[in-house]
């Protein structure tokens, strides 16, 4: 394969809401506005060469709901803007590609979602194919449980992942304040209630800048040294659910293994997903996983993946780490995986 020269692009600012486990009554533009203002303030930029967002209309149950979210941006005079009907992490990928064109130097990326408005467990059924899976009413918790059964992980290991995630989340002012997991309440067996990610409302925003502008805007920009996404067939029975071939392929393409990984932020909504992803990304015991608490401590759907990238970047922006990895997932049972390698 021919290696393509890529333009240097870095994350120069990241902001997220203090996520809530319930609806605070804020509209989506009201939810987004503070994080947009915060990244504008941090970078000093008022206008961006490109703007891209990620969300899902089914969360609000209203077509084109992402259009009204533009009210938070200042879209007049007209801006160059795009939207993906998926996690904001893919909006960041689109913005990264857009910056490769070379004619613009900055991009604003944001993702948002209010899970509180409906029942996420059944709303996620709508992402399944309408012929074979959606008519069965196969819900998010059930297909996650099928994957957990395929992994067959040790119960203690799963409990420890939940315990660690919730403890880290309590130390993270943006994540939810969840108690140590207790009890054996089964959700869909083999998953327990405490294995289920919390219903969360929230948003996040990131500013990308290319080349010299990145160094102007930040003392320690987090450079995107590799970014790639891969996808597998949507139908669960066509895949080996206990492994993630696509996450492994994306990790290889992004170059995760080319150096030590100090921190990995993984979009693991259920504890068995962390086990699958650690193996796919070939992470060793030296890597700190989800110090933010991860999706088990706050899961603002459609922003959760973007927040993984933001959290991984923030370690570099703060000067705490030199090489981090972020992962975002979409589709049922980690169908679609995006991996980003960030370096100081």
């Amino acid at each position, binding site marked *: 394969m021919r290696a393509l020269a890529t333009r240097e692009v870095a994350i120069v600012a990241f902001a997220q809401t203090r996520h809530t486990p319930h609806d605070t*009554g804020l509209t989506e533009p009201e939810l987004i506005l503070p994080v947009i203002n915060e990244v504008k303030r941090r970078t000093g930029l008022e206008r961006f060469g490109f703007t891209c967002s990620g969300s899902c209309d*089914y969360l609000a*149950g*209203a077509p084109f709901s992402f259009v009204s979210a533009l009210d938070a941006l200042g879209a007049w005079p007209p801006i160059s803007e795009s939207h993906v009907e998926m996690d904001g992490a893919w909006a960041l990928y689109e913005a990264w590609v857009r910056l490769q064109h070379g004619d613009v130097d900055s991009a604003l990326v944001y993702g948002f979602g209010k899970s509180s*408005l409906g029942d996420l*467990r*059944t709303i996620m*059924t709508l992402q399944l194919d*309408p*012929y*074979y*899976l959606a*008519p*069965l*009413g*196969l*819900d998010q918790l*059930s*297909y996650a*449980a*099928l994957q*957990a*059964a*395929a992994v067959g992980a040790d119960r203690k290991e799963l409990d420890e992942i939940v315990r660690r995630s919730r403890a880290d989340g309590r130390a993270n002012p943006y994540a939810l304040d969840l108690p140590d997991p207790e009890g054996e309440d*089964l959700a*869909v*067996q*083999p*998953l327990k209630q405490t294995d289920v990610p919390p219903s969360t409302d929230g948003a996040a925003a990131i500013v990308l800048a290319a080349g010299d502008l990145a160094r102007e805007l930040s003392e320690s920009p987090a450079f995107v040294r590799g970014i790639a996404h891969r996808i*597998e*067939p949507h*139908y*669960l*029975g*066509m895949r080996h*659910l206990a492994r993630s071939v696509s996450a492994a392929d994306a990790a290889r393409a992004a170059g995760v293994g080319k150096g030590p990984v100090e921190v990995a932020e993984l979009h693991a909504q259920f504890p068995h997903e962390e086990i699958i992803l650690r193996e796919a990304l070939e992470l060793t015991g030296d890597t700190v996983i989800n110090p933010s608490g991860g999706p088990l401590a706050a899961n603002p759907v459609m922003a959760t993946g973007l927040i993984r990238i933001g959290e991984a970047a923030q370690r570099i922006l703060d000067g705490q780490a030199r090489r981090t990895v972020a992962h975002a997932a979409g589709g049922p049972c980690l169908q679609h995986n995006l991996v980003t390698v960030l370096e100081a």
Partner: protein
Amino acid sequence: MTVPSDPLVAQHVLEFPGGYTRTTGPVIGRFLSELRGRRIVGARTAEGRVLVPPLEYDPATGEPVTGEYVEVGPAGTVTTWAWVHEPLDGHPVDRPFAWALIKLDGADTALVHAVCPEHPKAMEAGMRVWPVWRDQPSGHITDISYFVPEVTKIVSNVRSEYRLQAGGALRVFLEGVRRGVFLGGRCDQCDKVYVPYRAACPACGNAIPDTLELPDTGTITTFAINNLPDPRAPQVPFVSAYILLDGADVPMIALIGDVPAHEVRQGMRVKAVWVPESERTASMANIRWFAPTGEPDVELS
């Protein structure tokens, strides 16, 4: 629909009345048409694998599948399953069930569907399942209502009636019970006392012509706590025990009563509790059970 009491909170429903009309295309359409005919088919890929349910393309290569359809199943093998304790409205059944990946016989990929065993303990990877069809298939994945475990055993009922009559030694023993005594017999060759009374020694075959009256007191040699209901037992749990009547060499089995089950022990002294004299018959029902006497326990050799 409930009307929220807070005027600032609204109910909102997203619905497409009548549903979307979707074209199926030739591949999915063939699968659904075969389902309507109560057959399950897969599509053959160029590499020879059979995809069930069929996709238009081979997920391994991205190449279109061939035009060859292969009938598979209807039985299959469960590879992975998850148990739903509380079904949701949209689920295929309204009682607890399993979601499963089912590799139908002849297929190379697994179908996702529901499995309804009689009990969750019946679920295991590797189990064989068969489809239960909807009464009037219409060309929809739910034409299969769900799968059920393969028939691996049947229940054969056996019942025949008999009339029993106590004659001989048993009649002698039960006549004793009517009077409120236990009759045994001594073998003069073995010097062993047997109860209930029997006409011959089970060890040496020697005839035992005479009965011997034994007391209705004895010692528990071993016992069992029964947690399943029994029409003869006073309550659950109940205790049945071997009781060595004083002067006997073999124990008799009887119920233990008037004592909590967990207090019963080997070596405990017990005495028969008889029904009132006016109710007595030539039957073991004469003895309600044995109850502790309160004497010190006996060391069993």
